[in-house]
């Protein structure tokens, strides 16, 4: 019921997942802290079967891997939101972030305070890679489609920043347009981050 035959949304989904996946594997070759979420084919550190951790924990740096204005292909899709909500509970996200996502061990996901970025792709990366203070990396356990479904559900909770408002999100504008303009002549154009080609 979630996806049927080659509809247009299905195409956009595959491309978005691809570009994120590609970006992730690119970062894999960077020689830095070992993270199981890096290349999918890397073997896990052998750590005894009982203690083997299906979800590598140490995250990459906070650098955003995907272009920050990638739109969630499943945003607003009613079926994806219901499935995302079911996954939010089934994958024990609710255990840390609370069944109402208002925070418990993990941070509150309904407010506009994002340590690692609130745009859909930033949330996707936080789930995919994991984050330092205990957020596991789900990149290996969940396929791209399921992570996009969870992101679609989180976007309905009101705290997420729209894909094209990455900069406003970073300034903490909370959607207000700033009236205080800089002194004329001093305005330095914010450098737009390098973004890979827009998906169709």
């Amino acid at each position, binding site marked *: 019921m979630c996806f049927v035959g080659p509809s247009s949304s299905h195409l956009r989904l595959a491309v978005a997942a691809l570009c994120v996946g590609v970006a992730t594997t690119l970062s894999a070759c960077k020689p830095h802290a070992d993270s199981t979420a890096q290349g999918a084919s890397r073997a896990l550190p052998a*750590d005894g079967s*009982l*203690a*083997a*951790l*299906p*979800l590598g*924990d*140490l995250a990459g740096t906070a650098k955003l891997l995907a272009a920050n204005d990638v739109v969630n292909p499943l945003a607003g899709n009613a079926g994806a939101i219901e499935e995302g909500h079911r996954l939010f*509970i*089934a*994958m*024990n*996200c*609710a*255990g*840390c972030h609370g*069944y109402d996502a208002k925070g418990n*061990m*993990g941070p509150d996901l309904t407010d506009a305070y994002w340590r690692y970025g609130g745009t859909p792709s930033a949330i996707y990366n936080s789930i995919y890679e994991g984050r*330092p*203070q*205990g*957020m*596991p990396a789900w990149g290996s*356990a969940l396929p791209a489609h399921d992570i996009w479904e969870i992101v679609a559900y989180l976007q309905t909770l009101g705290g997420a920043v729209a894909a094209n408002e990455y900069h406003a999100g970073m300034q903490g504008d909370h959607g207000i347009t700033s009236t205080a303009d800089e002194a004329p002549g001093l305005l330095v154009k914010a450098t737009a981050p390098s973004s890979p080609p827009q998906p169709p």
Partner: protein
Amino acid sequence: MRAASRLVDSNWPGLLRVAVMVIGLTTHIEAAENDSSAIANFAPNDPPGEWRSQARDFASTRYSPLNQITVDNVKRLRVAWTFSDGVAYGHEGAPLVVGSMMYVVAPFPDVAYALDLSKPGSPIKWTYAPDPAPLAVGKACCDAVIRGWAYARGKLIYNLLDDHTVAVDVQTGKEVWRTKMGNVENGETMTMSPFVVGDKVFVGNSGGELGKIGWLAALDVETGKELWRAYSTGPDDLVKIGADFKPYYGWMQGKDLGVTSWPADMWKTGGGAVWGWISFDPQLNLLYYGTANPSPRVPVQRPGLNFWTSSVFARNPDTGAAKWAYSFTPHDQWDYDGVNENVLLDLRIGGRQRKVLVQFNRNAYAYTIDRETGEVLVAAPFAYENWSSGFDMKSGRAVVRPDKEPKPNVKLEDVCPPDIGGKDWQPSAFSPKTGLLYAGIFNICMDLTDHRQSYIAGTPYDGMEITRQAGPGDHWGEFIAWDPVTGTKAWAIKEKSMTMSGALATAGDLVFYGTVDGWFRAVNDRTGQILWSQKLGSGINAAPMTYLGPDGRQYVAIYAGVGGAAMVAKAMPGFPPRGSTLYVFSLDGDSVATGLEMPQ
């Protein structure tokens, strides 16, 4: 003897509200006075002015013989000095005073401070920063707290959140040894306060919420080497159950119950964490400690009595061999645990003196158990509960009400007490002068929905969706005096917010406690009359302690910094912000700092 109770408004404008005196009350005291059946052994009998371990003695009485501050002069208590460690997580430990030094440890990242009480303003003599793994914050189920630290043979010993136990030389502040006890990446953390007996220090883990098996381990004080480790579930050899293990009740006897009382292989993720308090009886040479809830919290997934979770163990400290165990809530369906403090007393029950331990369990029953055999002598609810329809003394089990057993995906309304219980880990105190136990308890009920849980290592494995609300009457907390012989309340003070602090009883006939919205109070231990109150900067989760300063003056210290289980009420109006300040009080606020000598 009817309990005298009245509502104290938290936004009380500083004016004392005099309690209604009930005539019958006074007569009881006289009766308790002369043939006070309850006595305690205050081994190791540390110097009266010092406070060398969290509960001050092996029996966990939290009773101080100091009596400079008494019922009459307590009104003159003022802040003498304060100290802030700048960390916002919940503060749950009590400062230690050895000689003229005070030792405190802040919550994560667990920096330890030595304060020189002999100098004005108690300056910092040394600090020790252990640098634990930041990952641990994300794995601690209920706030990155530390519930206490211990002093032994010139060393300050405490557990880091990332499963390492460290010992620090009290003179130099240098690390003496560091022992790795577990793997934080899998969801195991350590928050409990180590307990020292002789040359051994005993530590336990947290992490039942993330599917980790609980254990108690003994380390050598000098070297930190692990001597033995006893798990809470699993086959008898893991649980260190041998031939001389004799639980009192038949349903707890049998081989490898830690395996056979679980569905196939589920004991490996069975919980039973040891994150609470430990007591010790030097005569019987037995350690007493509790194990936490079974994992996952969803009972449908683990049919069977799920031994040895939500239980109390009596073990030989030298070998770890278990002598007896008692399960408070077999097949625990509401996360009621069993880790609360066990106060060791000698009581006259049924006409003869009995060596007992008293535990206010989270399932709202206060148990008086014979600590030699594990027989339940008294079990009576100290708070409102409706999960059971009474206690069957013959079988030693509470009778579970079927309509309060949660089923997956169906909301169950009005279950009392909630998951954090009728009383959580906040330790009670005992006063030999009144023979009563004093404890801060809750009056909370919950609506509960169970969700069947997958075990994914490193993620929570509990599955209880809970909303909590006040129990009968709209107050959330109560401070009570409890008679462990008859199992009844002597008196109770209703508090608007949760009373989540530990208690301190002193020879000055006073009992100190604090509330989650920041009130620190001293009450008359006989009448329960509030004699003195002071609003602190944040809510109080820690336990108060008292000591004799180098200037010979009695001080009372309490850490203020709300966190931990108190955060369940964070949505209530007027809930205090987090804090990190240690408040030290003395009569008229005098202290070494002001340079004034003690008036003769």
